[in-house]
């Protein structure tokens, strides 16, 4: 029996809402509003608090979440979100603070931001940090606008190309576009890294920068990174590090030491802040000193032993957020770093990498691993062979996992691997969980060859079965009240 839930609108009964914002007769004020500015009646739900609670409680149970089970969603670093982070982020001293209070009234928040910037500088090997970007893509745009501004200031208006590997995440080219750049791809070599020969052939003076993750989206560490950096730096192009994969290398190696000039981090991945079903996140950006002046304003500085919102950056790209970013998310990352310290961060990455290699080792006989190397915190397998032999696709395998109580791996990404499934266990899982997951994957493999039909009809134990994407897109229904308009 599918346990679906009505829409809130379908629970609405005229006059049955119980919530009151006012105990007095506040409606009289409407007479002071000129008639020509007034709105007529409008559609809106009327549901008592009791039913609102039940509605969202039941909806919540239709979600899978990391507090329920294993979430090996590659590139997303779905690690455990410590509960202390939620507690501290909801302290009244933080969440009831107006962003425009005078600086001497928000020294706690400013100090937290200042120290967090410092920690991130240390961890990244960067010289300055902005905490303003609110997601990975927001950080990317910020970094790319900095690249643009950097070249503009230098008068290099012709530098309009950003190079990135063909394995890059979709936000990378999209961010480059939003910063007014054109994208040029460089091929990956047979070790999954950047093909240096190909790189040399695409690099030229029009190149403004290079954008990459390392370990890259295949979960592989590019050992040529310093050589690559040199090639770009020769052309006065800047190197941008997409920090989505930073969970592999916390405390193990600094992007600054690899040769990167700009980095963003996804605090909602590596630094254990919850993903919220699609945000809010935070995407701080770190830069080398030559770019410090280009960061969004304000940055947090210290002056006369006071923390200040510093708007004085000469070449600042401006602002990317109305205020200072997703502050409450920053609190959580700060707390996480304070709890783990240097050794804790380093061990987190070590175990993340150990776990990924362990799963890869246990699965490699069944599922083909396109790059036969030690992986970092995640790895990609390909269901290409299985598909050819049985008709079962990466999608089918992913859906079968849902049925076994796991979230699916990332599917069909990166684009350069056919029938890709990207698996990232993170460090917070137990060996028991990893073993059980491997077992499930092996059972699914066997099922592909023994009971292919069943595989196509997965999942069955989930709140709904597979959805009709095509119908959704062909005749989009995205507003309940639409019919009435």
């Amino acid at each position, binding site marked *: 029996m599918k346990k679906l839930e009505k829409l809130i609108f379908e629970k609405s009964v005229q006059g049955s*809402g119980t*919530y009151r*914002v006012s105990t007095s007769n*506040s*409606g009289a*004020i409407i007479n*002071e509003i000129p008639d020509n500015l*007034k709105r007529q009646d409008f559609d809106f739900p009327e549901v008592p608090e009791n039913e609102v609670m039940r509605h969202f409680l039941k909806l*919540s149970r*239709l*979600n899978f*979440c990391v507090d329920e089970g294993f979430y090996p969603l590659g590139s997303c670093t779905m690690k455990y979100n410590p509960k202390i982070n*939620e507690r501290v982020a909801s302290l009244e*001293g933080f969440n*009831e603070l107006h962003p*425009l209070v005078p600086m001497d009234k*928000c*020294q*706690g*928040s400013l100090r937290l931001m200042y120290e967090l910037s410092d920690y991130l500088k240390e961890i990244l090997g960067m010289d300055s940090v902005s905490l303003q970007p609110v*997601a990975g*893509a927001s950080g990317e745009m910020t970094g790319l606008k900095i690249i643009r501004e950097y070249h503009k200031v230098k008068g290099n208006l012709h530098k309009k190309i950003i190079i990135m590997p063909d394995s890059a995440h979709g936000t990378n*080219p*999209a961010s480059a*576009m*939003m910063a*007014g750049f054109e994208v040029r791809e460089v091929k990956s070599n047979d070790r999954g890294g950047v093909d240096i020969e190909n790189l040399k052939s695409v690099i030229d003076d029009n190149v403004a920068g290079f954008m990459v993750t390392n370990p890259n989206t295949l979960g592989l*560490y590019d*050992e040529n990174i310093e050589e690559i950096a040199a090639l770009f730096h020769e052309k006065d192009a800047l190197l941008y590090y997409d920090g989505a994969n930073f969970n592999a290398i916390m*405390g*193990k190696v*600094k992007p600054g030491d690899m040769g990167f000039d700009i980095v963003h981090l*996804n605090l909602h991945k590596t630094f254990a802040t919850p*993903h919220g*079903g*699609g*945000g*809010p996140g935070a995407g701080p950006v770190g830069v080398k000193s030559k770019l410090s002046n280009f960061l969004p304003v304000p940055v947090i500085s210290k002056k006369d032993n006071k923390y200040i919102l510093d708007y004085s950056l000469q070449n600042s790209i401006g*602002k990317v*957020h109305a205020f200072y*970013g997703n502050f*409450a998310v920053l609190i959580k990352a700060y707390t996480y770093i304070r*709890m783990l310290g240097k050794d*804790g961060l380093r*061990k987190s990455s070590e*175990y993340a*990498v*150990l776990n990924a290699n362990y799963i890869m080792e246990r699965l490699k006989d069944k599922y083909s691993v396109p790059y036969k190397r030690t992986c970092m915190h995640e790895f990609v397998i390909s269901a290409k062979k299985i598909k050819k032999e049985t008709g079962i696709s990466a999608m089918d395998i992913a859906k079968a996992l*849902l049925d076994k109580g796991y979230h699916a791996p990332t599917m069909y990404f990166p684009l350069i691997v056919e029938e890709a499934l990207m698996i990232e266990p993170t460090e917070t899982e137990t060996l028991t969980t990893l073993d059980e997951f491997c077992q499930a994957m092996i059972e699914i493999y066997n099922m592909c060859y023994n009971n292919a039909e069943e595989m196509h009809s997965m*999942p069955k134990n989930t*709140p*709904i*079965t597979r*959805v009709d*994407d095509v119908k959704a*897109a062909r005749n*989009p229904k*995205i*507003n*309940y009240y639409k019919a009435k308009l």
Partner: protein
Amino acid sequence: MGFYPHSADDVRKMVEKLRINNVDELFSSINKKKLNPEINLPEPLTENEAFEELKKLANMNFSDMICFTGAGSYDHYVPAIVDEISGRSEFYTAYTPYQAEVSQGTLQTIYEFQSMICALTGMEVSNASMYDGASALAESIIVAMNQKKKSNIVLIPENINPDYVKVIYTYIAGLDINVVRVPINKNGLLDINFLKNYQNIGQVGALVVQNPNFFGLMETQIDEIIKFKQENSIMLIGVVNPITLPVFKTAPDIDYDILTGEAQPLGMYRSFGGPYIGFIATKEKYLRKLPGRIVGMTDDTEGNRCFVLTLQAREQHIRRDKATSNICSNQALCATRAAVFMSVLGKQGMKELAFVNIQKARELMEILLKKGFELKYNGTFFNEFVVYCKNAADIHEKLLKKGIMLGIKLEDSSFLNMKDCLLICATEKSSLKNFEKLEKALDEVTI
């Protein structure tokens, strides 16, 4: 204290399985000289110690000031049910709902959010959320300008939130979009004559109207603005505070092409500026031009009604450098909060909320007028208004010492010519007691 559970024995087993001697062998691709660098961080803490540290920081803030300040961040009461529901693991520890079969909770909630945003704004379609009001406006401008390929001017009045303007400039840097600022008239509204007489009208792709504007004023020249936009085939972008909409005219009475804004008032704490949540609603014909996630209704293979991320062909992971935007993670949990907020207040509660805000702002205005301030602009306002008096900056400063923040000085917010003007805000949380404290404090500082 860390969150990696392997016992020494577990590690031994795993290392054996991998036929390595120690975990660092897995990092052999990394340049040995760069491996395991020094990192200067404070000593690790237990949960209890971390809590104490953070409480110390929180207590260094003056969050308990009486705060008559809006300017893009509003002090509304957040019903307990909002925290309770958004605090459920199922909502806050889920990822983006890529796997619809196990994500109907988030998907249906977002669908309901979209629908309620449409109901409030009067628009036909809405997306799933944007980073904040500022970036939502910036992206709206890009959407609008992409509709008018031959035009490269967007008209932005001077009465728009100045921080939003800064974000717009950052977003359009490198793109072929120019901003022309529309001056304001003596009523604090946009100068309609400027529009009528504007020379480069052929180049104009879009006009932005904030309503209520940064000074809290409702736009009264709507008919002329509509006429202007329709005659010149310009995209009209409205920026609204969603809690005004139960009372004030909106689409379709006003022919907005895009209606955007900050939904922080719908259940988000002020939280020193974030996380907040932008929204973008538009006409159906522009649906496929929207940035960000969109949830749509469909069926599963058994014919159950269900929900799914849809129209993904617009998005970065499919369209890459041709996408409508780079946005990927957005503010889903904030949308969840807004959905709960709107559901629990419901129609009557949302109306009352608007009424009480209007009422409170008028009460606050009366107090200030009584104490010698003057209204900068006459006009209909919602919960914000501008006052001036000759030593406003001084009074502002002295009140701060008494724990009262009487709005912001407009001079500090890029309005350099508005010396001695304060932008003031009241909400349903502005209690009688706080009004009395203000009166008393004003008496003391103005002697």
